[in-house]
């Protein structure tokens, strides 16, 4: 089923440009929806959507509402049209809270035609055709493995039964021949194993020591993991996927966690940062993970939660002022007595975020990747070198210290990064 869906998607991807090209040929040279799509994404998508109202109106079927010549002049210089007192222009201007549309004098009529072609484009029903293509399951490999395993198990079982049977017949023959079996005779004289064990004081001593040591080892291990929340993966009030934002969309960590560069806190982004993008992205159109229930609807619904929290009225494209701060569950909790500064590591030490936080760009649900124990901190301080490039602060001190220690590049530890008071005060 899953594969079927994937194939469908793949085919759709391949077929869509083709269909565009067909259409292009069909419509002649001028309006090319494929070129139009590119232009639309570059120029219009910030404020317009095809099927939905955004900052500006939905553009699907815009050609049927307005005259083409009117559209040319509107797109090129809308404010002039409003000023000139064009009734249609004023009507639309007033409908959208008197917000002025950017002028696009750089677009030629040809470009605009292409864009309009894209807005009018209806994809041919390729999906139905695709679903009719029979899909051959390709599962040979795994099945053969299972078969081999099964055969092996069967052979071993047969061998085992044979062995038992042979043994039994041999014994019967021996008894019949009057041979006394040695084992049975000796059994009565042999002391049981546990008695022998108790009598052997050395063995008792060794095993007691062993038991004590191993329980101490495991006890210590248990105690040391108390308060270490590696892998802590709480459910958040809004399902925020780092995989989508940081992975698929390649957004820099510092874009949202901006204070990590300057402050001790990396900072949980305030909701107005989310709205920088989500004012336009109201629904999810990316990959789905159906196994875990992460459908497009699911993600879109999470975006709606953001809107509710920040008080964004999607229909009217404005803030209502009714806010509901999001109570995120904090994942990385250092104890109060440990001082940690993000900017020291991010900006001065130029440590990648992933060093401590793991492959965040692959995390659908954020979790604590590192143990955040003192041993873990110190380990890194011992191994890492200082980042001296272009940092005037280190010049003098590094020169004299590296001479003292006889190394080319100092580690953080040699710089004093292991001193208690640097982190505990």
């Amino acid at each position: 089923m899953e594969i079927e869906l994937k194939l469908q998607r793949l085919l759709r991807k391949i077929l869509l440009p083709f269909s565009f090209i067909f259409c292009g040929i069909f419509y002649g040279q001028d309006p090319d929806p494929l070129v139009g799509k590119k232009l639309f994404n570059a120029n219009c998508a910030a404020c317009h959507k095809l099927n939905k109202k955004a900052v500006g109106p939905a553009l699907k079927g815009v050609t049927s509402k307005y005259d083409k010549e009117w559209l040319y002049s509107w797109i090129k210089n809308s404010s002039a049209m409003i000023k000139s007192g064009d009734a249609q222009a004023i009507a639309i201007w007033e409908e959208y809270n008197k917000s002025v549309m950017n002028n696009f004098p750089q677009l030629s009529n040809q470009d605009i035609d292409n864009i309009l072609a894209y807005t009018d484009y209806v994809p041919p029903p390729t999906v139905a055709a695709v679903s009719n293509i029979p899909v051959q399951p390709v599962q040979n490999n795994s099945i053969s493995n299972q078969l081999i395993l099964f055969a092996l198990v069967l052979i071993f079982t047969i061998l085992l039964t044979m062995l038992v049977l042979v043994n039994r017949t041999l014994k019967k023959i021996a008894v019949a021949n009057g041979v006394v079996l040695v084992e049975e005779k000796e059994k009565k004289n042999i002391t049981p194993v546990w008695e022998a064990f108790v009598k052997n004081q050395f063995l008792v001593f060794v095993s007691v020591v062993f038991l004590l040591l191993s329980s101490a080892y495991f006890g210590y291990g248990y105690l040391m993991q108390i308060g270490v929340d590696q892998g802590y993966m709480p459910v958040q009030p809004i399902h925020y996927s780092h995989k989508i934002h940081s992975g698929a969309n390649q957004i820099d960590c510092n874009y949202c966690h901006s204070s990590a560069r300057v402050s001790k806190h990396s900072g949980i982004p305030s909701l107005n940062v989310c709205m920088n993008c989500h004012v336009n992205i109201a629904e999810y159109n990316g990959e789905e993970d159906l196994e875990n229930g992460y459908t497009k609807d699911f993600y879109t619904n999470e975006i709606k939660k953001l809107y509710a929290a920040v008080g964004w009225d999607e229909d009217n494209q404005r803030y209502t002022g009714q806010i509901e701060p999001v109570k995120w569950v904090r994942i990385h909790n250092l104890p109060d007595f440990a001082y940690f500064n993000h900017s020291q590591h991010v900006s001065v030490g130029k440590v990648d975020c992933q060093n401590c936080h793991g492959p965040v760009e692959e995390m659908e649900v954020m979790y604590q990747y590192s143990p955040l124990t003192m041993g873990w901190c110190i380990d890194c301080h011992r191994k890492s070198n200082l980042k001296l490039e272009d940092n005037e602060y280190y010049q003098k001190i590094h020169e004299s210290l590296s001479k003292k220690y006889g190394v080319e590049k100092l580690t953080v530890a040699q710089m004093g990064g292991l001193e208690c008071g640097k982190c505990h005060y």
Partner: protein
Amino acid sequence: MKKKKTYWKNIEQIDKKSPLKNDIENKEFANQLPVDKILLNQDDFQLENTNRRDFLKYVGFSTTAAALAACEGPVIKSVPYVVQPEQIRPGIPNYYASTIADGFDFTSILIKTREGRPIKIESNKEAPDFGSANARVHASVLSLYDSKRIQLPKIEGQDSSWDSLKTQVLLDLNSASEKQGKVVLLTQTFASPTTNKIINELVTKFPNIEQITLDTVPSNYAVQAFKDAYGFTGLVDYDFSKSHFIVSVDADFLGDWQGGGYNTKYVSNRVPDRKNGKGKMSKHIQFEANMSLTGANADIRVPATPSEQKKILSYIYSEVKGVKSKVKLSPEHEKKARFAANGIKKFGSKAVIVSGLDDRSVQDLILDLNNYIKSFAIDNSARLTRTQSGNEVDAFIEELLAGKISGLIAVGVNPVYSLSNGEKIKDAIKNLDFSLSFSMKKDETSSVCKYIAATPHYLESWGDYEFKEGYYFLAQPTIKPLFNTMQFQDFVLSIIGSNKDYYASIKEFWSQNILNGKSWNKVLHDGFYQKKKNEKLKFKPKKNINIVEDSKSNSKLDMELVLYTKIGMGDGQQSNNPWLQEFPDPITRVTWDNYLTISSFDAKRIGLKNINVANGALNGSYAKISNGDSFLKIPVVIQPGQAKGSVGLALGYGRKMGIQEEMQTGENAFVFFRHFQKNQNVKVELTDGFHEFACTQLQNTLMGRGDIIKETTLEIFNSKDKEYWNPIPKVSKNHIETAVTSKEVDIWESFDRSIGHHFNLSIDLNACTGCGACVIACHAENNVPVVGKREIRKSRDMHWLRIDRYYSSEDSFEDDVDTKDAISGIGDSLTTFGKMEKASENPQVAFQPVMCQHCNHAPCETVCPVAASSHGRQGQNHMAYNRCVGTRYCANNCPYKVRRFNWFLYNKNDEFDYHMNNDLGRMVLNPDVVVRSRGVMEKCSMCIQMTQKTILDAKLEARQIKDGEFNVACSSACTTGAMVFGDINDNESKVSKLKADERMYHLLESVGTKPNVMYQTKIRNT
């Protein structure tokens, strides 16, 4: 045969006829125990509520449940802003310039805020004047988070809203003006141009309102004298940096005299330097009754009662003017007075004389003398921070008591508490038709007023000020008001129907009258604006100046009481501030109390005693002081240096209303503050009982231990070698005297600290006035807990930084050393040391701030069994609290006794109900410093959070660190320059030069600890 004794266990047993006799004798239990019944009857057995098995089950279950619950970590929520303000970045402090003007303290300050809440006050050192915050100003940030603040307006004790309060007040005001009834607007000194304008507008609208200024502790006689001499209301601002000879007659100008704030300029020429030939410093002679901070810092201090002081003044006056004096002085006083007069004559314009005596003729005389010698110290701009002139307040009180007033509006004042006849005034206010109090607290006055208008703290308010002619300051809010409060000015503006708020009014007034085209934003950023004053002060000399001497008419009132304000408590506005309650008085080192200071001579005469009890705490007998119908029962502290025949008592204590029970300390001395004169005649008697003081240092002397405080005179400093007055202690090695600092006698191997930063702190004992601003700054920066009076008494105070005060047992510390050196033999030593424990009648006083000395060879580090105390390469002695197990070995091994142990949990503990026990008070905590828990040792960290921040900032900006960037809380709070912090590996730094200074010495150098804190020898110009 002996009669056999009868033992019995019940009275029935003796009575032979009793039917119970047999039972008692034969049965162990009177009734059979119902064992069978219980065991046989299963139903009953099961009906029992909890039997043994169930109990075990419950125990087992609850233990498991508790254990399981403990395994679950707490879920911590993080709530970011919905819309984050641009200038707030979590983890980074913002600083705002603002101004405090609470009617007593007037200072330009910087406010450190974290995530939108103010957490620390710092001096605005760029301000041209009034830029040095004292201990009270530093502590005022905690008063913002006072849980006893009133949170909304009240009408007759009931919660109300601003709208209904406005309507009610307007109704009452209108009915008062209809009836032609006089309404008095009793205010603090605002020193605010815009407020004055707003009040004028109010008076224009309601002409029946009359404004009267009431300073809690006024300088009204000086204001009167100034008004007559110069023609307007104000005070002379003295610039002590321009005087080389300072004569002060009871003017505590290092304390709160005429608004205080004189220390920076005073100290600026008190630090001699031999680099350019001879060292120079000003000479300061002080005549006073109480031992004040100023007297303790003076070169020559002469104890004299107020009546003697007046005689001395008139003697000096006639000597300087060359008139034959008629007054009779004691030989000692005459000698010193002649010395002062000759000094004034000799130094001429470079001399100054000041007086704090509350007497009109004295203040006239002072102005006359200073103008006669054309003293450079008289600043051309007058101070405007005390404006009460006395007469109109007296008139108002009379009218109020006579019932001639129909309404009262009190703003920032608490007359019921701070006036001597407060009880009568209380009844009079109750009888008024209309009474409204603008207050942050339900204090003595506002609780009897009909309306209380809840005002915001100054950190939540706008304000503009002119502290001195031409010196303008701005105050801006640094936090959104915590409660439903309104500023007085905003309230008035809405009452007079203005459409502007106070902020808009200030902005308008400034752009029209002050700024002269300068940028408002720039001024708001700086916090101050200076305008040049062109016209000169014009002095109108007075013809007849005659000091009216007090005649001791009533021989029963044998003692002269001198009221004063303490560095910590001031006028008592911040009584509910635990930092200030626990702040040790710089002189007596007593916390949580006010008391009667008395000379040992008078104490002996009356029979008053101070006793040190077994645990080292101080007990003092109670005295009853009385004058007419006012009397107080007050404990006594025997004060060395107190003038015979005088007693001292601090104002600002004994508040009861709007104050937590723990902070209701001391007695209200305002009952004696008649006619705003701090000198009163009283009768002092012994009464029963002893008071338990919480004193952080005993009243003993330095005993000639010259290696703790090194002191010399300017003469010796200039004429002799360093070896003479600041020798390095020596030890004998192979019968050769070797300096303890030399490597030969050191058993330690030193670390190489020549690379990177090496922090040192230099404390100049000449520049330190003992003001204690550093102590409070340290509290605020390092989350130092308040432990309360009971714990302080057990010497469990938590101050990371203490200012030790030492007395000399001879007339000077020098003489002490001579006495000690002259001891021969053990018998002599016992008797001499015994004698030296007692301070002399007029001792020299020295202040010494002591915090962790951050020894390079630290005794504490070697004894810690868990290595919780370790040394950093940068010279700081680290203390890892989470590692500490509380053996207290380190504290025992510390020669400086600077380590503090958390005997209890001081936060979130009802036993210690101070600011750390409520959510509001905890908002003041510095998020960069751990709040320590029970069983942990703590101490000064040399503000490692601040030095690390400076280093990180330099790393982030990829630059070297300049000198002056490194700071610690105490050094940045110090406005006299006594504390200098920096990196001694930077050869250009100020501190590395101070380390090479010949005055430099280390505390207890002979111990060989090699501290990173150094002191500069104190030099007195005697």
